[in-house]
């Protein structure tokens, strides 16, 4: 399978001695929907900044569809579209001009760039705003404008750094749909996000970065299988005065009066319903609590922090 992004031994050190990246390796296959997760300051944006040549690396290699950024930077860039975390367009320019100008930087003639700009502005619901100066757009529109701008040259690899930060739920869902459609059509997507629900919903493979090191690089499926306990939230017909005693299950009542039940891996749900039936508790609906990936993520980052503290002798 073709490798969309291959990173080997990537280092980044700053003048003050701070090491933002400590030799990370990353491999993203063509067609993948990949999440790079990590707490603030872990090195996510630095990694993506180096890939998109906004940050100079201190060591290591980066290849985009086989184009090494040291020897064939233009080839790498032609295959890459970047949606940064912060708005980085000229606020005084019109939406349409921003997108067509970006196409021009890739050497796409104006006639062709107009067609491409129209296609993506329409897909992202910005066509009506094409003659509006960018500063007049809402936050969500500005995010969509950056996606349209990143796609105007039809890149094979799209990198999104926190694409839905500060975006309302409805818009976030529509952006997810759009990105899933792009991925289905063959665009490889890498995203960083703080909404782990987003990574869980969209991505197939995940890497977790912390303190400049990749602490996990695997498939979402494999990662989620590590969860030994999953919490289910059950809405009951009658309001329960207290959490019932269910044999083999740990139960609590949450603040909204719903029943929360911890189910251990392999335990299954059938015995739970038998127990509930015995006690005359009728369940109206059931869902998993929060998102499982978040639970795992927090645990991994905490474990890593403990390991680092041990290494530094300050347990």
């Amino acid at each position, binding site marked *: 399978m073709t490798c969309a992004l291959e990173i080997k031994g990537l280092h980044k050190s*700053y003048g003050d001695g701070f090491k933002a990246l400590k030799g990370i390796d990353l491999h993203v296959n063509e067609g993948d929907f990949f999440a790079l997760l990590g707490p603030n300051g872990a090195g996510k944006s630095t990694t993506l*900044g180096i890939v*998109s*040549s*906004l*940050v*100079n690396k201190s060591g290591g290699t980066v290849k985009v569809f086989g184009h090494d950024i040291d020897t064939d*930077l*233009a*080839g790498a*860039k*032609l295959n*890459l579209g*970047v949606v*940064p975390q*912060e*708005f*980085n*367009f*000229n*606020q*005084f320019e019109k939406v349409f*001009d921003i997108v067509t*100008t*970006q196409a*021009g*930087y*890739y*050497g*796409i*003639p*104006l006639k062709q760039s107009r067609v491409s700009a129209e296609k993506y502005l329409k897909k992202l619901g910005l066509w009506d705003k094409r003659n509006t100066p960018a500063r007049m757009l809402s936050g969500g529109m500005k995010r969509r404008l950056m996606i349209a*701008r990143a796609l105007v040259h039809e890149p094979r690899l799209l990198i999104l750094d926190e694409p839905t930060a500060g975006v309302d739920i409805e818009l976030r869902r529509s952006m997810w749909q759009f990105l899933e459609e792009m991925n289905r059509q063959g665009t490889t997507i890498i995203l960083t996000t703080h909404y782990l629900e987003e990574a869980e919903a969209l991505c197939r493979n995940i890497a977790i970065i912390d303190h400049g090191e990749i602490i996990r690089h695997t498939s979402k499926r494999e990662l989620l299988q590590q969860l030994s306990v999953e919490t289910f939230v059950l809405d009951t017909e009658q309001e329960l005065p207290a959490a019932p005693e269910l044999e083999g299950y740990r139960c609590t009542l949450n603040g909204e009066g719903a029943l929360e039940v911890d189910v251990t891996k392999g335990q299954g749900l059938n015995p739970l319903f038998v127990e509930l039936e015995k006690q005359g508790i009728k369940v109206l609906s059931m869902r998993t609590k929060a998102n499982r990936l978040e639970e795992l993520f927090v645990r991994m980052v905490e474990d890593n922090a403990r390991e680092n503290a041990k290494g530094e002798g300050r347990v």
Partner: protein
Amino acid sequence: MTLHALWVAFVTIVVREVRRFTRIWAQTLLPPAVTMTLYFIIFGNLIGSRIGEMGGYDYMQFIVPGLIMMAVITNSYGNVVSSFFSMKFQRSIEELLVSPVPNWTILAGYVAGGMARGLSIGLIVTLLSLAFTRLSIHNLPMVVITVFLTSALFSLGGFINAMLATKFDDISIVPTFILTPLTYLGGVFYSIQMLPEFWQGVSMVNPILYMVNGFRYGILGVSDVNPFVSLGMILVFIVLLAAIALRMLARGKGIRH
């Protein structure tokens, strides 16, 4: 990138630059027209009539080439320094940095944008000057070459200033404390023949003196210095500043972390 793609990228940068300074014409095109008209009225008509002749021409005719050149210099420089620094400040420079445009094309695009504004202002000032005096061209190629190269040189200067600048104050220091004094002392309003010998020698190290005189030679046929030496000086400085600017771009000075 293919040659055609490079051309498209270059034209895109130039068009964006022209769109920028024409969109804010009240800040870019109008002020120099008003300022130069005041110079023509005050220095040319009111004071100039009492000064009489300079270099064999009446004072108004003598200062017109210098004033045109002054407008070209300040506007070429000002366009690139403010445009590029604004892009850095707003981070829209990242649009260019993530694209495959080579550094030399970025530099050429900005310099051409600065020249477009500098030469537009030069044309506006020239047309305005015709309302006050008569201009006859002594050597057209010299006029054209000098004004084009000077505009390119100061666009490069503006680019380097913008690369080094970290705050808005930094983009006004050079124009205020270096460019303006050198322009005023560069023989725009007087012939250096009027100065004592020592100050004539000091004036000769001012690069703007060569540009003003090269241009004046092209229009009036009089110059304090050899016009071909002027051209040579401008070319040397262009090569030097272009090399510095390209090196800064390659290292990502102030634009890459």
